[in-house]
């Protein structure tokens, strides 16, 4: 199972490296949204709750693009039939797609977060790096698990482009709450953690529930 998932993941990453479709588009999108927020809020630098909110809303919106593309290649080129015919169970397909999404999100954040610090964030990033990495890792895991599930749910519908954002964003409200609340104290002028453990615990609970749930129900999707 792990070997099959690894093979599909390697295929997805190689495809992304060659076509450069999702990650550059998502990164460009985050930069555009920062510019939009700059003009929309009419602020040159943000701090506190506003900064955390702008950062996480931007990342979630970028994730929508990644999620709606995650099965695109297979569908357009008919590779999904080959994947479904292959003697691997759907769980490995879920693990591979979620892992691919996770890698995409990390790749986007490598650019998007320094860019946020440069363009909009008032206080520096340096003081909160280890904590921010933990929040990002747990947040990305939740987004990746729910994203792969939502992408598979929407894959067979006629109104795919419509269903993905409508379905994904409400599902991610708890992730947004936990990540934004956990990041917010570090983005105040007087940086310092506040209730960090509580929000990380909530994120962990969310991740565990949705990874297990997705593994359990993924067999019923993409069945034929």
């Amino acid at each position, binding site marked *: 199972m792990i070997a099959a998932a690894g093979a599909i993941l390697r295929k997805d990453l190689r495809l992304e490296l060659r076509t450069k479709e999702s990650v550059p588009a998502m990164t460009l999108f985050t930069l555009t949204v920062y510019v939009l927020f700059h003009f929309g809020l009419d602020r040159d630098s943000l701090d506190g709750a506003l900064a955390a909110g702008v950062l996480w809303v931007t990342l979630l919106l970028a994730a929508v693009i990644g999620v709606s593309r995650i099965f695109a290649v297979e569908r357009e080129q008919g590779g999904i039939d080959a994947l479904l015919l292959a003697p691997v169970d759907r769980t490995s397909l879920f693990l591979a797609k979620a892992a691919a999404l996770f890698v995409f999100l990390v790749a986007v954040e490598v650019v998007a977060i320094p860019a946020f610090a440069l363009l909009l964030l008032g206080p520096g990033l340096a003081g909160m790096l280890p904590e921010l990495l933990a929040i990002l890792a747990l947040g990305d895991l939740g987004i990746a698990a729910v994203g792969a*599930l939502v992408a598979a749910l*929407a894959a067979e519908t006629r109104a795919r482009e*419509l269903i993905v954002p409508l379905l994904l964003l409400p599902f991610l409200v708890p992730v947004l709450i936990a990540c934004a609340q956990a990041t917010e104290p570090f983005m105040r002028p007087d940086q310092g953690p506040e209730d960090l453990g509580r929000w990380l615990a*909530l994120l962990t609970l*969310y991740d565990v529930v949705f990874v297990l749930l997705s593994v359990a129900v993924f067999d019923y999707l993409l069945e*034929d």
Partner: protein
Amino acid sequence: MYSKGLIPLAGATVVTLAAAMALVFFYAPLDADQGFVQKIFYVHVPMAIVSLCGFVAGGIMAIKYLRSRDPSWDMRSYVAIHISIILGVGVLATGAIWAKASWGHWWVWDEPVLVSFLVVVLLYCVYYPLRFSIEDRERQARYSSVFAIAAGAFVPLNFAAVRMAEAYTHPRVLSQTGGNLPGEMRLTFLVSLLAMTLLYVTLWKLELTSKHASMQLKRLKRKLAEREAVAA
């Protein structure tokens, strides 16, 4: 098939609803703080509880469908979610009216239950476009069931998250509707809750019966058309 016991059930619903309304208006004491407006509590809170239980029940029926592959379980799950969404919109409306009357605003973001409810209703509204944009019957049932299960698990998680977020910004007593109601109010509340549950089950059965009947009618019409085509 679904209509068994519907008439006595509907009768019981009417009687309990009438009894609940009578208790609300003539028996339960006026709230010292909020006065008459507080009576909406007897509609709003039972409605919210029943609607949430309906969402979770829809998820459990969806599990049953995936286990048994019996389309009637998918139909039950779909109708349960359908009725819950209708009650959910009612919860948002009565919540807004209550908020306007007691706090002066139509919407308050620091009321965790109401805010979580909005998120849940927004999520479940996507059930319709998801379900009806899949043509194949069997696949439609399968995908809808997976959605119902995932969303059913999301409901308690979302409540925990929103409650934590609000408790964090506005530290205050968490349970408002909980234990410490005076006796008359509690009795009225329990009767209202029972009435709302009966109403939910009646509506659910009624909708199932009508869906089943219209499906059968369609099948008969198709058969008739086939026979006419053969005769002609």
